[in-house]
């Protein structure tokens, strides 16, 4: 009976319904529909931004068996670079011209993304390449790189918090009756969904995506068939870092006040997401990110004291249930 039930649930999508279940439970507990809706949108927005930051880490691990402890450095660099560009273009941001708004925002995000890709390329070449296959040294070296990167952020931008201007068109909230959503959150959700769809299409419909998926499953086999998997590695690493920087840029606009401690805070969240979702799979990462985002917002409303511990508790429960995360890549 139970067996039948679980296969049935599995066929219908299985663990992918977990965020929905979480949202429904929260609905019962919160009782006020408008509050619930606002929190849900906030949770989704946060989840999508975390997804951007975490997806690269997960992909890199799945393909190369490298866990980059320095990944959150890209997030902080992305955030600070985007913030600097926005500050520089603040006159464009405050103008009523939507086009100028748009251009400034795009410039900020693309500066972060460009930097992320370049830094990722450099990182793979210089830091990670010599230690492929040696987990212990990988952990140590990427940890060292994280320290250095965070110090560089401190040297360049100083230790005090930096305020980030938002484009005028994304200021404020949309209001329908009792229900209000910040515009920036909608923007974050849209961008996150676009990134996910993009990744999904590339991974599932293109030849490169086919190679990457094959590489995740069996790297040796792909190499044996004559494909230059090291080139694949470096491009995935660069894309992953660029996504992290993009997530950081979005996060900077979302928080409107960023400090160099941001990297470390996000690192923990990103790790929890990847642990929950299972290493190596994009779907798993999205699932984990949405769960963490939703849980974080609901718990912050229902029991503010528990807010920080919530993702931790979530991680423990999921690890007890599935030690390798919800949807790990096949290994």
């Amino acid at each position, binding site marked *: 009976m139970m067996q039948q039930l679980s296969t049935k649930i599995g066929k219908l999508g299985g663990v992918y319904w977990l965020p929905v279940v979480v949202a429904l439970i929260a609905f019962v507990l919160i009782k006020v529909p408008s509050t619930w809706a606002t929190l849900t949108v906030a949770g989704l927005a946060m989840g999508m931004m975390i997804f951007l930051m975490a997806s690269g880490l997960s992909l890199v691990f799945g393909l190369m068996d490298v866990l980059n402890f320095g990944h959150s450095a890209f997030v902080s660099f992305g955030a600070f670079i985007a913030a600097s560009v926005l500050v520089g273009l603040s006159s464009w941001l405050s103008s009523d011209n939507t086009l100028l708004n748009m251009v400034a925002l795009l410039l900020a995000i693309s500066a972060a993304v460009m930097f992320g890709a370049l830094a990722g390329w450099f990182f793979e070449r210089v830091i990670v390449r010599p230690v492929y296959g040696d987990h*212990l040294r990988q952990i140590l070296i990427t940890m060292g790189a994280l320290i250095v990167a965070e110090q560089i952020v401190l040297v360049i931008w100083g230790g005090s918090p930096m305020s980030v201007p938002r484009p005028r068109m994304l200021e404020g909230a949309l209001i329908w009756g009792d229900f209000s959503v910040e515009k920036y959150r909608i923007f974050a959700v849209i961008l996150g969904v676009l990134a996910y769809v993009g990744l999904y299409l590339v991974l599932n419909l293109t030849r490169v995506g086919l190679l990457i998926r094959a590489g995740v499953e069996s790297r040796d086999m792909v190499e044996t068939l004559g494909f230059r998997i090291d080139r694949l590695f470096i491009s995935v690493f660069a894309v992953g870092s660029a996504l992290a920087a993009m997530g950081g840029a979005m996060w900077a606009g979302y928080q409107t006040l960023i400090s160099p401690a941001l990297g470390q805070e996000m690192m*923990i969240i990103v*790790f929890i997401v990847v642990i929950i979702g299972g290493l190596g799979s994009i779907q798993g990462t999205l699932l984990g990110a949405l769960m963490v985002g939703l849980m974080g917002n609901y718990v912050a409303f229902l029991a503010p004291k528990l807010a*920080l511990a919530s993702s*931790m508790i979530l991680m423990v429960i999921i690890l007890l249930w599935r*030690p390798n995360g919800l949807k790990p890549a096949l290994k």
Partner: protein
Amino acid sequence: MTINATQGRLIVRTLAITIGVLLLVAPFLFPAVRSLEVAARICVFIALVASYDLLIGYTGIVSFAHTLFFGLGAYGCAIGLKQMGPSWDSVLVGGAIGVLVAILLAFLIGLLSLRVKAIFFAMVTLAVASVAMVLANQFSGYTGGEDGLTYRVPELFKTATKVMTDESGRVIKVLGVKLNGKLAAYYFVFSVCLLLFLLMLRLTISPLGRVLFSIRENELRAEAIGYRVVAYRTFVFSFAAAIAAIVGVVYAIWLKYTGPETSLSLTIMIDILLMVVIGGMGTLWGAVLGATVLVLAQYYLRDVMSAGVSLTADLPILPIILNPDHWLLWLGLVFILLVYSFPAGLAGTLIYRQEGD
């Protein structure tokens, strides 16, 4: 000059024992207050790093939660002293609770996640440790939040306490050093750390230590021979956690202050990592060298760096880079270079250089 492994081992041990002897007589050789601070910190970190080496070097477990256990001991003792007043009872009760919680937590983390890959375990411990740090800041009613706790320690360790007096009631001086409570506290730190170190040394040469080695070298084979890898790993993880917590208690007594920066922060974890890597993983003697080198560098290189700033004040960029506040930047670079070029560390390079040939 070529040295073989036996000679290398001899050199490493001689160095380590020399450091030990220097630490024993440190209060008389270097009577300044600051040097005593340095010496006590070296003692504490030798024990702490050695316990971490049991994990990373001997068993191949990468954990980032070591400061968590260290902090549990320190906070246990600190909260005990704060709430129950300065007595030995409060040290015992608070310290014991801290150590027990550390063991329990280590046991749980171990059972929960030592089954999975090393890299996964590293992530889980990092997450747990970071959340603990945040929690410590949040429950500021007990932990003092970011400011930490200052408290008074048992009577014997107060600087004003006269441990030995002459007939006229003045404190006796030996070689110009007052036999006061500060000195008693230092020798308390020294002897506890020495005992812990010897205990760990004993563990590594026991049959149990051999099993740990075998797990590091080939987990599957160890399992196949009939050793329950998860049980051994969980044991050594809890054991190292207990040691770290005891060291935490000792450090809390010595500092008379406990805060996130001295016990829980990621910076301490990075220090421990650096010391293990500098000293050499897989030799407890290496921990002695690593801890000594890094603590000395931390205390005295900053002085050199500030001197460098004032010397180069007129030049561009250099003063910013040499600013002692950015000292972690340099440590990070040194760390990366060390992991690349001397993965075996000081002790390992001396001992194993010839064995590969």
